[in-house]
């Protein structure tokens, strides 16, 4: 019945449930539709299910029930090859960063581009730009465990943004950052968004989601808080 919306949505959840064994209900009948180029803030208390929702989008977790479509692919019925192609379109800055400990900052940020076989020169230029933008000059050849936590976070964000991904998922991107560095991150996000990137940012930082003119979805115990509408609306949970 929402055929048209489904057509245009780049991310769509229909009645998605995620239950971690044995019985932790992380998401409960979540439906949402996000159009290309939108910015969506995901808020909610600790343990509400924000990270779970983002992990479902990049297929790091499988839903217990329900349908998830990303970039036109049904993630429940996708081939390995296509799944990897979808993942290449998603940049995710994980809440626990997931940096490769044996690689340098430079190599970490380069990874998504190497995976898609980007020419070395393009990689170099992009990384230099990102390091400058995120205030990480001089840290290129250092391993992540020699960085401060906030520096690590910015490396994770740089890696997520490196490949100009059509979809960028950021999980608590400013949790370890001061106001100044947070602003740098937001600026980078805004820039990407202007170029067409769809942004989903999970955060509990009011400064972030109140100052920015974007929709905010609030999760509580696995469900969206505003449930007065019966059908999934663009960028609105049901």
């Amino acid at each position, binding site marked *: 019945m929402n055929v048209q919306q489904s057509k245009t949505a780049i991310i769509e959840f229909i009645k998605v449930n995620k239950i971690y064994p044995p019985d932790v209900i992380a998401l409960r009948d979540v439906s949402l539709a996000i159009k290309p180029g939108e910015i969506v803030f995901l808020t909610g208390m600790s343990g509400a299910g924000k990270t779970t929702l983002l992990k479902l989008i*990049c*297929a*790091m977790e499988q839903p217990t029930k329900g349908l998830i479509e990303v970039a036109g692919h049904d993630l429940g019925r996708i081939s*390995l*090859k296509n799944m*990897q*192609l*979808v*993942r*290449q*379109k*998603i940049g*995710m800055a994980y809440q626990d960063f*997931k940096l*490769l400990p*044996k*690689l340098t900052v430079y*190599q970490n940020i380069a*990874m*998504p581009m*190497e*995976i*898609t*076989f980007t*020419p070395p020169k393009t990689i170099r230029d992009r990384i230099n730009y990102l390091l400058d933008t995120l205030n990480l000059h001089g840290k290129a050849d250092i391993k992540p465990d020699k960085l401060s936590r906030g520096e690590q976070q910015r490396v994770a964000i740089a890696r997520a943004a490196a490949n100009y991904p059509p979809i960028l998922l950021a999980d608590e991107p400013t949790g370890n950052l001061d106001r100044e560095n947070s602003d740098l991150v937001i600026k980078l996000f805004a820039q990407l968004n202007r170029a067409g990137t769809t942004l989903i940012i999970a955060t509990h930082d009011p400064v972030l989601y109140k100052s920015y003119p974007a929709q905010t979805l609030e999760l509580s115990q696995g469900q969206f808080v505003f449930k007065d509408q019966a059908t999934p609306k663009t960028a609105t949970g049901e």
Partner: protein
Amino acid sequence: MNLHLSSIIVQTARNLKHTWGTQLMTLITVSLSVLMFSFFFLIFLNLKQAGGQISKNIRLIIYLNNDIPAAAQPQYIQKIKSFNKVDKIIFKTRNDALRQLRQQLGKDGDVLDDLTAGFLPPSIEVYPARDLVSLAKIKRFSDFLATLPGAQKVQYGHKWIERLSYFTQLIRLIVLLSGGLLVLTATFMVSSTIRLTVVSRNDELEILHILGASKSYLQMPLIIEGLLQGVIGSGIGLLCLYFLFNYIRSRFTGPGLMSIIHFSFLPPPTTAAILIISILLCTTGSIISIRKFLRF
């Protein structure tokens, strides 16, 4: 495609650089395992050959009451052969026996000139086929030969045959047991080393996987690594074996000694098989680590 290849080679080189400690350990493990395994296989092969040569020297002598006329000989031959495969059968008359004694006495042999050929018994010497190594089999054969018509008693060689056969058997058992032990150990070593390597690489592979790395991007470096490890590891192992073999052979190239046991190295097909199996083992082991991410 060129970009792909170079990117994968870069990735492999990076892996090797970061995990060289573990890689070296796996390499040594593979080398030692191949060396041990092929060493024992080589011993076993040469022992089998030696066993054949020793049993060539076994003969059973049937002392008879009377000479057997030439006409009756085929009948005896047939009977003997019906019980066991035989290499050679020699009939000796009283005269032959006397001649032999004379030879044994050397230049004092002429003291026997006056004697008639009567006092030494005639005999049949039976050289059993090479597969007859077990002492029990020889005994059974000897018991059978004692039932031949005209047989007085059967002697099977000297004590040393018994001892050599006993020795060969013991050594064969020991070689088999220790060989089995070694194969067990080698398998365990290689698989446990690989398991530990896989565990340590788990996180890394998972991150690459969720970043969207393609199957070949994940697999190729591991395949190349396994390949290198298999080739280099078993190569070193076999090379060591070759030097060891030459060392042993050179130590035992005294005059007359080489004639008893003929040393030979592993035949080329066996060498090739060992190489290929190690490569497969290493590669498979490496690839197992991405099995859980890639459903294949």
